[in-house]
């Protein structure tokens, strides 16, 4: 009975048509106790700028809570509220549901209000995955969940999470005399798995703040399309990755150019790659991962065999997965043939009709 669902009007937040058209107002401003060169802080700034003033933001525990509001101060211009680690999905739902009920009952003005709940990779990919998943099944609430991924539990001084790359040095995976690599897990594809698994979710995207315009426009799209949405950003982290902060921007670009971080979006059931990832998907050569890895102290202990393994996994992803960054498997040959055959038959049928 689809008629029962009342979906509030969403707004149309037009994409910025070029850097010179980006609005000046800052809704997340200076004075946060983040590291020099913190790309997660940049993500916050761009996200808030794209969303604009009719926004409430829920921030779960992590760097973007502790550093941004240390101690009893704030850098937020728009209303912001803390939520618990792992509770971003719940915070988004609760806020959106509360606003919806109050608007319906006439207690507050009926208008599109952006609800954005953010989480780090620790709070999103590990602890909060289930609450995000639940949130993405609720088509009647409008909100964006943004996971900023600096590839560690950064706020607690760098521990590995489910999103830490293979072999990286963290305080839970220090390279030692007896064991060089304590962390042999491969990074999960959160955006991919969420896109593949939640048919009611109309928009999922990966972004990178080094491509600021594209990132902001994706935030705008997510806030306009209606229903629950999810964005996953990769944020170079000078502290956890161990590099001179002025390289933050370059490393963000390298992550994409090496193919390690595919930029894609799934919008109303259609997947597209964008930015440099589009070219890579079409066959353009990727930069070697060595270029990216050896500019970060967290991989300084890597031997050639480790770098080769890393390269191999990235190659596998682009050459063998059904959809790089999204579906970590391929189809059996006979299934492929059967699908090709049935597609061909369909095409013939259509031709003859």
């Amino acid at each position, binding site marked *: 009975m689809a008629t029962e669902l009342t979906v509030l009007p969403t707004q149309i937040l037009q994409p910025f048509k070029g850097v010179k058209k980006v609005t000046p107002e800052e809704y997340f401003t200076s*004075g946060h106790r983040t590291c020099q060169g913190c790309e997660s802080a940049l993500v916050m700034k761009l996200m808030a700028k794209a969303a604009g003033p009719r926004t409430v933001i829920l921030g779960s525990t992590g760097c973007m809570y502790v550093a941004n509001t240390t101690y009893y101060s704030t850098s937020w211009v728009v209303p912001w509220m803390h939520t618990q680690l792992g509770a971003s999905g719940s915070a988004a739902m609760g806020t959106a549901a509360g606003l919806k009920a109050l608007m319906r009952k006439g207690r507050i003005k009926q208008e599109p209000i952006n609800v954005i709940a953010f989480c780090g990779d620790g709070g999103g990919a590990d602890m909060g995955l289930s609450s995000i998943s639940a949130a993405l099944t609720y088509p009647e609430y409008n909100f964006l969940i943004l996971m900023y991924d600096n590839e560690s539990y950064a706020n607690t001084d760098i521990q590995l999470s489910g999103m830490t790359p293979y072999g990286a040095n963290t305080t839970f995976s220090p390279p030692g005399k007896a064991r060089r690599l304590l962390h042999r897990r491969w990074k999960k594809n959160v955006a991919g798995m969420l896109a593949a698994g939640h048919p009611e979710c109309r928009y999922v995207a990966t972004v990178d703040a080094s491509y600021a315009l594209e990132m902001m426009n994706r935030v705008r799209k997510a806030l306009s399309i209606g229903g629950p949405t999810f964005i996953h950003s990769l944020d170079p982290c000078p502290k956890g990755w161990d590099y001179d902060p002025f390289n933050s921007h370059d490393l963000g670009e390298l992550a994409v150019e090496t193919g390690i971080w595919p930029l894609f979006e799934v919008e109303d059931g259609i997947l597209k790659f964008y930015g440099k990832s589009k070219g890579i998907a079409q066959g353009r050569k990727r930069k070697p991962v060595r270029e990216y890895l050896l500019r970060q102290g967290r991989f300084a202990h890597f031997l050639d065999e480790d770098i080769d393994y890393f390269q191999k996994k990235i190659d596998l992803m682009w050459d063998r997965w059904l959809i790089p960054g999204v579906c970590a498997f391929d189809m059996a040959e006979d299934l492929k043939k059967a699908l090709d055959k049935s597609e061909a038959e369909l095409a013939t049928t259509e031709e003859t009709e």
Partner: protein
Amino acid sequence: MTGSVEVVYRGIFQKHLGQRITRGIVLAAWKEGKVGISFGRYGDSPERNGIPAKSFAVVADTEEELQAFLARYEPNNNDVTVAVDDTLCKGVESWAWYGLQPINKLTRPGGTVLVTSIQTPEELLKDCHRKGAEWNLGIVKGTASFSGLWVVKEDHTDVRVMGAIAKVAPHVVKIESVETAIRNEWKDELKVASARKSYDRVTTRKVGADEGNSEKPYEFQLLKWWEMKEGLVIPAIPVKQEVPGWDGGYRPGRNPTFKKFSTRTMRPVVNFDTCTKCTLCWLQCPDSCFDITPTGHYDANMEACCGCGVCEAVCPVEDCITMVNEQAFDGNSSQFEAYEKDKETYLTSWLPEKIKDKVITHRSHGFQYRGKYEEELAEAAADGGGDD
């Protein structure tokens, strides 16, 4: 007898350095039969790149004397304050409501501030705030040593500072104990020699009660419980600040209780003439530190800039943005204002003087690629020993 040493350092970049120094002091004092503890300041945690942090070594002859220092966050009457980046002498702001704390604030009267620096004492005293009591300024000659969390640059700064501490505060540790501790801890005779060399060469100078920077550093009064809004609510920052004399342009509202400029070791110097207004510096700055002037230029606001250098990295025009060490500047005045006031002087003498100087534009701000630290150390050795 008790003694305490605080090491003021750039968070993360000098975390290992700070720890090594304070641990080393305690280990050395132990050799003399003293007791002691080494600890980082809890409020600094989690440390952030560049944000000033502290670690401490406290030593005493007896356990009872040591108790006065235990279960406390920081000793406030230090025999020695070490600043391992001389730009910290301008004052440190470690978290919101902290205000700007002079580098010598917690040094006891008559104590010593030891700074790793290539500047002269007179130059440093332009930065150090007046203390209102006599103190000493000691210099361990050399540039600031920056590493990161995982890879450490082994340039002997740690042991050189330890050697210097033994010279200026022998009641805390003697140089012989320092040498023994280094030998035990690192099993490296070169390090032992560096410590002794530093001990021999460190210079100190008395500083009068009224000598130094006369500016009053900003501070805040913490609110009483009934002045605080209930429900953990604090007001947000206004979206915009009015700038007197500006018609148009945009200066964002900024957090008044944490300015962040004392995080800088270097600041961007901007050539407003060659700037193409591509917006990238402003857009990619994680700290929103660029004001948009009424002329459409981007002026890095020095009250907000924390010196990360991303603007220099993204700027497409050569020499338009250049990072320059803080020692070349006084105060936080606007570069754009100076440029508007006198373009000639700004462009033909002030700017080139800053950005052409090899010393003050030298950047060694952490890990750049595997092998770079070793290259830098080799270069320094080839230059005839930068470590003295």
